[in-house]
Every structure is written in C-alpha cells, then in structure tokens.
C-alpha cells in the first residue's frame, strides 16, 4: 500500500495485500481481472492470506498464481477440484480455492467438480463462465449460447448437435449433499457488489468448515466474442443472464443429526 502524505487525500482504493504487484495479461475489457480483485479483497478482509492456497486452472487464468500473494498450485486442465480435495484432506487448516473457466470446469473437469461437490469437500470454487474457450482462441464451450458463433461453431451453436448450454449451478444444486451454490455477474457495479458478497460467503463457509461452495460468475471475453468491452458487458445482460439466471441455488441446510 502506498502511503499518501498529503493530508487532503484519503485512500479509498488500494491494492489488496493478497495481490502481487504484477500487471495482468488479460485483454482490455476482460472481467477476469475484476473477479481476481474481488477474491483478493475477500482474502484480505477475512484475514486468511497466510493460510490460503489457490489452485489455478488451464485457461486464460492459468497465470493467476503470478497475481496473488498466496501459495498456488497449477493444475492439469479441469482437475483443480481433485487437487483441492487432496490438499484440503491432508491439510484441513488451509483455506483452499479453485479458480476455473467453463471449458476447464464444465467440460474436461465435469466429473471432478461434481464428485468434489457431492463428497462435500470443504473448499471454495470460483467458476468463471464466459461462454467460450478463451485461451485456445475462441472455440465452443459447453456453456456457449445457442446460435453463438465461435471458431468451432462457425454457423452458430446448433443445439440439435451440440446440445443446450450446460447450467452448472442448476446441475450441482440437485445433489443431496449440503453445499452453497450461487450465480452472479460482474457487468455492472451493482452486480460486482453482489459478487463480492457471494465470494465472501463462499470463503466464510470454508472458514466455518461448513460445506463446499461454488460461485459461478458470468464473465466477458470481448476478444473472442468479437465485441468492444462495452458491447461485451451488454451481451452478458441481454444474452447470458436470461439463460443463466442470477441468484442463490443452494444453501447449506441446518445440520441434520443422523
């Protein structure tokens, strides 16, 4: 934090301690950076930086470990929930979170996230849904919208062939095992505030050793959507949020004695 000597100035915005001073590599208008910041602020506010371990995905956020001031593991594509399970089971005192894209979590790593959630592993997942494979150059993801043009759906996603976009929060909330599942977005300031609250709840659940938590964040990929940053945030509002409704899908029930 830079100390400001000028008495007329008050600091209202500073770099969270959980952040390193590296400049991120994200494209202009990409909301990965906002989501990173909300996680970092939460880690600071809950005072858990020194016992937090992140698990990085394979995707555009693969280098997330450079941007945080916490221990990190870099996982194979989709396997972050398995790494997090291993970590948390042998070192339950650590606060473990995975940060995963929609190709990573909803496609190649679907089995790992479903089973981690079903076992009720007590870690936190930040799931960034930008309806596309960003890192590999804009291919179709399981979350790509019907009719959406990508480099592997050049005529638009055909739901007859590719099926409908997968709704991960809805899918995971069918599990009987207690968990916290919420979908949020970061395309407006109001939504950013709500997302911060959701992320905080998810980490608090872990601190309290309560349950598995997953926060799905609707995110932008202006580069591969072929839109300007402003058009991209509008696209989240008009195209994504009607199909991916925001809200809490599952809350841990009060403990039932068996």
């Amino acid at each position: 934090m830079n100390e400001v000597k000028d008495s007329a100035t008050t600091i209202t915005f500073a770099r969270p301690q959980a952040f390193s001073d590296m400049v991120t590599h994200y494209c202009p208008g990409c909301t990965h950076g906002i989501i990173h910041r909300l996680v970092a602020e939460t880690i600071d506010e809950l005072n858990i930086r020194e016992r937090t371990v992140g698990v990085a995905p394979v995707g555009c956020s693969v280098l997330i470990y450079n941007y945080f001031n916490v221990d990190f593991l870099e996982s194979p594509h989709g396997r972050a929930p398995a790494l997090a399970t291993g970590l948390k089971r042998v070192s339950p005192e650590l606060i473990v979170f995975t940060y995963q894209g929609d190709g990573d979590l909803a496609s190649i790593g679907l089995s790992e996230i479903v089973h981690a959630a079903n076992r009720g592993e007590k870690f936190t997942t930040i799931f960034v849904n930008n309806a596309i494979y960003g890192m590999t150059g804009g291919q179709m993801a399981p979350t790509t919208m019907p009719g959406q043009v990508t480099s592997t759906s050049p005529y638009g996603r055909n739901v007859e062939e590719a099926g409908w976009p997968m709704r991960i929060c809805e899918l995971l909330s069918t599990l009987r095992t207690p968990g916290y599942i919420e979908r949020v977005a970061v395309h407006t300031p109001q939504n950013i505030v709500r997302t911060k609250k959701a992320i905080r709840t998810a980490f608090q659940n872990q601190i309290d050793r309560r349950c598995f938590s997953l926060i799905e964040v609707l995110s932008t990929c202006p580069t591969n959507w072929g839109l300007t940053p402003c058009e991209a945030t509008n696209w989240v509002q008009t195209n994504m949020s009607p199909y991916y409704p925001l809200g809490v899908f599952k809350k841990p029930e009060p403990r039932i004695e068996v």
Partner: protein
Amino acid sequence: MTRILMKGNEAIAEAAIRAGGVHYFAYPITPQSEVGEYLAKRLPEVGGVFVQAESEVAVGNMLFGAASTGKRVFTSSSSPGVSLMQEAISYMAGAQLPVVIINIMRGGPGLGGILPAQSDYFQSTKGGGHGDYRLLVLAPASVQEAVDLTMLGFHLADKYRNPVLVIGDGMIGQMMEPVEFPDKYDEPALPAKDWAITGAKGRKPLITKSLFLDPYALEQNNIVIHAKYEQMKANEIRFELYKVSAKNRMLIVSYGTMARICQTVIDDLEREGVSIGLLRPISLWPFPEMQIRTEAAKPNIERVLTVEMSMGQMVEDVDKAVQGKKPVDFFGRTGGIVPAPEEVRERILKLLDGKMAK
C-alpha cells in the same frame, strides 16, 4: 520384529503405514482391492486420510494436490487404473513431487484380464505419460520384499522429490507369505521440505507447477530433473545375483515372481549338472545395465535368456545392455499365464543344445 503370515496386498498397505504413508487416495480394481479395503479400516485408527475417488484420473490429481504439502501420500492400482493416472504422474514429475504408486499388474492390453502379468514394464520404465521424465521403479519378488520396497519407496520419493512406482504382478498381491515389519522404520535423514505448500506465512508465496512458458526456463527445469535421474543411476541401482559362477553356461535375467520361478529351474538344472546363473533386477529404472553387461561378457556365458510374463519388454533393455556380445533370447507367457518351471527348463535346454539359436 514379529513374523506374521500376510497376503501381499495387505502387507503392502501395512508397510506404507509403517513408513508414514498415511494419506491414501484410490479407486478399486482387481487384483489389488485388498490394499484399499485394509486401509479403509486401518487409516482411521492411525489418524490418516482415506479417500475413495471417482476415477483414477482424480486419484492421480488428488495425489498431486496432497503431495504438494510435503506429507507422505500414496495410491495402489492395477494396469488400466495406472494408465488413467499418467496425466498426473507427468505433472508430478515436472513439479518434482514425491509420491508412491503401487501397481499390481494384470494382463493387457485394454481391459485384458485380472490374472498376474508383467505387461507394464514399458509403461513403467519408459514414461507412460507425456514429456521427458523418469520414475524410480522397484519390482519385488516376494511379500517381504514388497514390504521392504514399499517403505524404501517413500524414502526415495522424498530423497529425490520424484514419483516412485512399486510394481508387482498379481501373484505378489494375492499370495500369503510370512513377513516381518521393522519395529521402527529407520531411514537416513532427508533434506528439509522447504518447497512444501503450507500457506505463505512469514515467507514468499510458493508455486507448485510444471508450466514454464519461457523455453529457457522449461529447458532449465528439465536439466534440473535430469540431474536427479543421473544421481539415481549412480545411487539407486538394485539387483540380486543367484548362483552366478564361472561354471554358468547361461545368464538368465528375470524380475518379480518370474525370477522366483527361474530360481526353481536353476536349482533343478544344477542337480542335472547344468549350471545357470540369474541376475534379478530389483530396480527396473534405473536399470542394472552395466551389471548385466559385465555378467554377460564373462567367457563362460554362452547366451543370455530373458524370461518375463509378457511378450517381451525388458528384453529390449537386456539386449541393449549386452551390446550384441552374446545372443540374447526371450521366453515369456502372457495373458495371465504364469510359465511353469518345466516350460522354462525345456527352453533353456533347447537353447543350450543350439537348436533354437536366434
């Protein structure tokens, strides 16, 4: 030390616990399911961790996460399961993590069968996953040796920060033999685990990874891990000689259960006046290449015979070791068929008669 009668799979499980390997992640598969069943009961008693994962893909990656903490972690599986772990094994080799993987091999390829085989020599020693890496591979020939090598495996994994494979065929897992466990596992001191993920308290953050986008950094990581492989070659070659003498006409190279059957054959032939010696590799990687070369080059040795429960895998390394100085022959059965001593004996006699010269 107490001597008890135990099934191989259960003895391996107990050996792991005695070596401090109390964090176990696995998925059931024949012929080693007793390892997990034993541990499901025992680990809660010793305050350990037992997780039955959803697949061996997940097992490998759970080990990856758990091993990064510096705690002793392991799994057991059989051939098809170990195939699914290759992703994580490659990542763990790249990220330099210690882990012990027990493979009680069955016949392949594909789903193959559930009976004993030595079909995974290539997968184990030549790098079953992607990239430029090696595993330390240990091959026991008895239940006692399975116990000893499992314990040693944990030590070597920590010593070199590298995955260790202990491979036994189904016989090792299923047979019952008397075993002794040391009262205390005595091991030489190990370097401090300053790489372990514990949370960045009072130190800079640590990153456990195998990703190096800068080609010079990636090459450097490969140079570092290859320097360890050279050390392993210098320090960790293990083998046993059986009835090797200047009277031998033939040298047999064989490992695991197959080597024990060869010992029976060698004893029988000795009584008939035919002298044969055996070199049994215990470490399959690093491979006792120089030792085989030396033994094979002795003037009394007419030929070298490799015997395996496979269609011929280790024989390629024996061939390389012998460097064409003596004929190298192969005998093997596969599919879960364990060669009978008579078959091996007959092959030896035919070879020495010159009828089956290659």
